[in-house]
């Protein structure tokens, strides 16, 4: 979609700069004249919202570092100093802590949008994988950031996650020691996590640039999954997308502000306001909400190494997705069966999130026991998480590959501007006989 540039330098200075560094041209082509499909809905505004989240995290983070002390002896006190003494320190810290949650809300919506509308399919595989890389970096950044306040949850969260790597054969113990910089999570660990927590957001920013670059090469997908074919299918980025993104950001900021000002600790854990004590583990240790589905997958598997592999495998599935989905139809708008499985997938992810927050042996319904299957009662969160994990993997490894080959899809419109019903293959029987090669 990177056609020839229509930028016309108007003033002498612009002409002078354009001949030397066409940066204004780049901005104009990318954010003003850039053609966007005319049928983008509000699910497409989360890219802009995510850029806002990243900018907000960078700015608040840089200010926090001015007041934070990365040392096991002083970190906890310095966070309290930020909360009590630093001008608007409470606001900056709550924006940063809740901003991480908002970032993940937006990224999950963004990813599910891509999953539903088939935004990972050719030619957008690299775009999708870059997005997965950003997600991976976000998880590493969020985890390390959570360690910095050096509260009880910070400390024992770090212990659990660094020990995950210890499950790997041969290299495991060395990786763990390397992460710790000692015999256990301690001052050395805090210092290296602080360093990396400062570095990784800039790496994210770098991959975001690649992500947007890849996006502008292949162009945006859209709710029909049909590539724009003519001028009638697109609208210029400004004012259409900028105004729509701006409105969506404003609505998103209302949600953000509600958490920052009215529920600043709703997404955190009270135990993290207790300073780290290596000799006592909090009775109920859970990660932040955005890691809960993966945590549930980890706990669903009774074997340590297999549990760790399942958890990383859950993320690996995302990377392989462009090659797992065999359907030629991009958008699930025209894939009624896939749509159903997609809805179950979203429910399964939510169930995994719930299971991750509960104790494994607690009953799901009521307080009764059914019968013991394997190592736990069937009416327990550990069994619920096993069923949900099974569906999670089946969705990627069985349903999407097989469904694409056998599913009866609905007729796909010829172009974005023309309605689906004018398609010659309007009757569903014919549609399956001559499937949608036009996408």
């Amino acid at each position: 979609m990177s056609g020839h540039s229509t930028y016309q330098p108007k003033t002498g200075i612009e002409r002078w700069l354009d001949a030397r560094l066409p940066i204004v041209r780049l901005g104009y082509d990318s954010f003003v004249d850039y053609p966007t499909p005319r049928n983008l809905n509000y699910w497409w505004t989360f890219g802009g919202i995510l850029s806002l989240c990243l900018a907000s995290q960078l700015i608040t983070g840089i200010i926090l570092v001015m007041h934070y002390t990365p040392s096991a002896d002083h970190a906890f006190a310095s966070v309290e100093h930020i909360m009590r003494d630093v001008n608007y320190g409470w606001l900056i810290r709550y924006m940063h802590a809740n901003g991480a949650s908002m970032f993940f809300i937006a990224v999950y919506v963004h990813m599910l949008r891509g999953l539903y509308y088939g935004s990972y399919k050719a030619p957008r595989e690299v775009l999708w994988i870059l997005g997965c890389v950003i997600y991976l970096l976000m998880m590493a950044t969020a985890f390390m950031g959570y360690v910095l306040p050096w509260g009880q949850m910070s400390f024992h969260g770090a212990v659990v996650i660094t020990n995950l790597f210890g499950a790997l054969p041969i290299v495991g113990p060395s990786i763990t020691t390397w992460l710790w910089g000692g015999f256990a999570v301690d001052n050395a660990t805090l210092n290296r996590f602080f360093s990396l927590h400062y570095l990784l957001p800039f790496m994210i920013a770098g991959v975001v640039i690649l992500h947007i670059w890849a996006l502008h090469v292949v162009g945006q997908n859209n709710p029909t999954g049909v590539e724009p074919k003519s001028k009638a299918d697109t609208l210029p980025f400004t004012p259409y997308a900028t105004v729509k993104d701006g409105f969506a950001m404003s609505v998103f900021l209302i949600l953000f502000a509600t958490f920052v000002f009215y529920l600043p600790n709703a997404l955190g854990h009270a135990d993290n306001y207790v300073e780290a004590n290596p000799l006592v583990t909090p009775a109920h240790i859970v990660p932040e909400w955005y890691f809960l589905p993966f945590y549930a997958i980890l706990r669903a598997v009774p074997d340590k190494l297999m549990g760790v592999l399942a958890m990383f495998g859950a993320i690996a599935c995302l990377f392989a997705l462009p090659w797992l989905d065999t359907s030629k139809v991009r958008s699930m708008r025209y894939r009624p069966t896939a749509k159903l499985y997609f809805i179950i997938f979203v429910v399964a992810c939510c169930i995994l999130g719930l299971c991750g927050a509960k104790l494994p042996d607690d009953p799901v319904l009521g307080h009764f026991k059914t019968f013991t299957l394997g190592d736990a009662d069937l009416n327990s969160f550990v069994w619920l998480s096993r069923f949900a994990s099974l569906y999670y993997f089946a969705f990627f490894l069985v349903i999407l590959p097989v469904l694409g080959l056998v599913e009866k899809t609905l007729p796909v419109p010829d172009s974005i501007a023309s309605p689906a019903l004018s398609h010659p293959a309007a009757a569903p029987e014919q549609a399956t006989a001559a499937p949608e090669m036009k996408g």
Partner: protein
Amino acid sequence: MNPSADTLALASTEFDLTKVADGQQVTLKWRGKPLFVRNRTPAEIQKAVADDGAAMKDPQKDADRVKPGKAQWLVLIGSCTHLGCVPTFGGGDYGGWFCPCHGSHYDTSGRIRKGPAPLNLAVPEYEFLSDTKVKIG
């Protein structure tokens, strides 16, 4: 990024056992991790020895986990072999330790009996300097 010299220098520690009464446990910090020094009651030892033949993930005799003739003293690294949380004594199905993070049950010898942990609670290298003093590490 491997441990620095001053971190490695924290490698060993000495402990006076007279501080631990019968049936009590003292938790020290050793190499940044908790260390349990437990003065076991005869009932606990009996229970551990009686279970020597039971089915276990990481089979080990109780006698191999203590120093000869010092069966009352059980010295363990108090870090769950699953993901490193600190197990609490008195919980679980086997009268020993219970890990609150992912529900591993250890018996009175610190052996894994139920739950996701793969190995028994580790016994560190230690020696008796006298009847009442141990050197750990």
